């Protein structure tokens, strides 16, 4: 356990070099490309507060950057070691793979939050009303909700990035098609990942600093259930393909 805790510094270093820099670069470029032309065009009319016409766009971009960052962070978190065969030397050492990957998931969450802290700091320079605290809260919530499912898929499949994207998009589409009907299909789609709650969660949590508790619990709970399911499969299944 102590050796694993010490190894978390290496895991964090890996995150920074392999994913964190990419996340910050993508987020910065995205923000720059979206807002810099608008800021120039609006000139002195640009206020950057909640009454600004671009405030809603800022929330949408911030929310999308969080989703993309989580996708980048958990992509191959378990399946990568399996595909490349790195598990062989890692787990011949006296460590528990379940704790190793649970720790990796937590370390990557810290990494995502640090990246979001940097990006929200940059965003605040043009949107002074943007709350870093609320944004980090939202990022943490989405990391658990979406990352938990990503973690499960990384344990269960080799193509987790693709699978997560299909699950995420598929859930949105199926919910929009069957969600409002009054038959068994509307009940069935309720079991799908609660992606429909993300937009409202972004608006309420990042924008106003408050969110519907049941929505937050539903999102976090859904992610946690899949995360734990991933750990159970890791414990009971085979490390090798």
């Amino acid at each position, binding site marked *: 356990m102590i050796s694993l805790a010490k190894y978390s510094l*290496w895991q964090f270093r890996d995150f920074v*070099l392999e994913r964190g820099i990419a996340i910050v670069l993508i987020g910065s470029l995205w923000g720059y490309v979206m807002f810099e032309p608008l800021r120039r065009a609006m000139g002195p009319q640009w206020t950057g507060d909640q009454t600004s016409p671009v405030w809603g766009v800022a929330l949408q971009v911030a929310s999308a950057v969080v989703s993309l960052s989580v996708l980048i962070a958990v992509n191959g978190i378990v399946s990568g070691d399996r595909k490349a*065969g790195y598990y062989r030397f*890692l787990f011949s050492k*006296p460590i528990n793979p379940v704790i190793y990957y649970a720790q990796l998931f937590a370390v990557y969450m810290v990494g995502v939050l640090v990246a979001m802290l940097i990006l929200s700091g940059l965003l605040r320079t043009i949107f002074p009303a943007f709350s870093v605290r609320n944004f980090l809260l939202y990022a943490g919530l989405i990391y658990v909700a979406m990352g938990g499912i990503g973690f499960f898929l990384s344990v269960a499949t080799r193509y987790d990035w693709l699978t997560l994207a299909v699950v995420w998009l598929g859930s949105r589409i199926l919910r929009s098609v069957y969600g409002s009907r009054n038959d068994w299909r509307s009940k069935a789609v309720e079991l799908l990942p609660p992606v429909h709650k993300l937009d409202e969660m972004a608006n309420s949590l990042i924008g106003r600093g408050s969110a519907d508790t049941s929505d937050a619990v539903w999102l976090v709970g859904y992610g946690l259930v899949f995360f734990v399911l991933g750990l159970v499969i890791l414990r009971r*299944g085979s*490390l090798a393909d």
Partner: protein
Amino acid sequence: MPGASDHSAARAIVIEFKNVGKTYRSLLGNSVKAVEEFSLVVAKGEILGIAGPNGAGKTTLIAMMLGYLRPTAGTVEIDGLSARHYVERNGIGYLSELVAIPPKWRAYTALVRYATLAGIPDGEIHQRVGYVIELLGLSEHRDKKVKALSKGNLQRLGLAQALLRDEKILVLDEPTHGLDPVWTQRFRDIVDGLRRPDRTILIASHNLDELQRLADRVAIIDRGRLQRLVSTGYEHATPAMTRFRIAVARGHELVRAALPQAEEAGRDEFNVTVHSIQELNSTLANLIAQGVLVASVVPEHSVLEQQFREAVGESS
């Protein structure tokens, strides 16, 4: 099965495969039996070789021994614990057939990482890493990225990480794969140096000569089954092992006269067929007494080669 039980009776059992089977099933329902009804005990202090043709199941067996794969039948126990449980508690020095280390890691930092995971105390990590780097001749490559290492150097790095800790069990899968002759010999010396009464070593290899030199016993497997368990010592030399190649430095005519049935096998060499090792010794004694200077005596096929050919077939 010669040697199958006498070793375990004399020494404490460390590793036990009990009727182990592993069947791979595809999503379409096709199944392939990689290992079937495999039972074997390995004693403390023993060096056990695992030999078999490609696809015989060697790597699958090792993966089950490390707990990377779960058997579909039977159990693998190490020191009375399930394999995975043992590894998580104690660790095993393991060199895999394919050395997979992230290509961007540098050789030295890779070893520091593995040493951290192995639980080596902070104060000893650099000393221990320095020792294995020196032992495996990696000093000039220590700051290179893994992707910049040659196959042989990568293999040595793999072996270095397996030797970081003073492990009670070492598992080496095709350890000399990719090594040049100098390092192949050096590897043999290293393994000889690792032999200890409380350390058990498993070596899977295609190289029968290597196993003959290093192992106490060799499990010959084919099509996922244990075919034979062979003691590599000559005390169990079989009647089949009766052809020897004798090289002489002096007295060729005397050999031809004393052994008219001997076949000339090149310059200074004769192939001689005898019925036993005793007959070989008395023949040599006679030749030497007559003034023949014997340079070397080598069995045409080692005990292991002969057993392997019989168990697996000439085609392998």
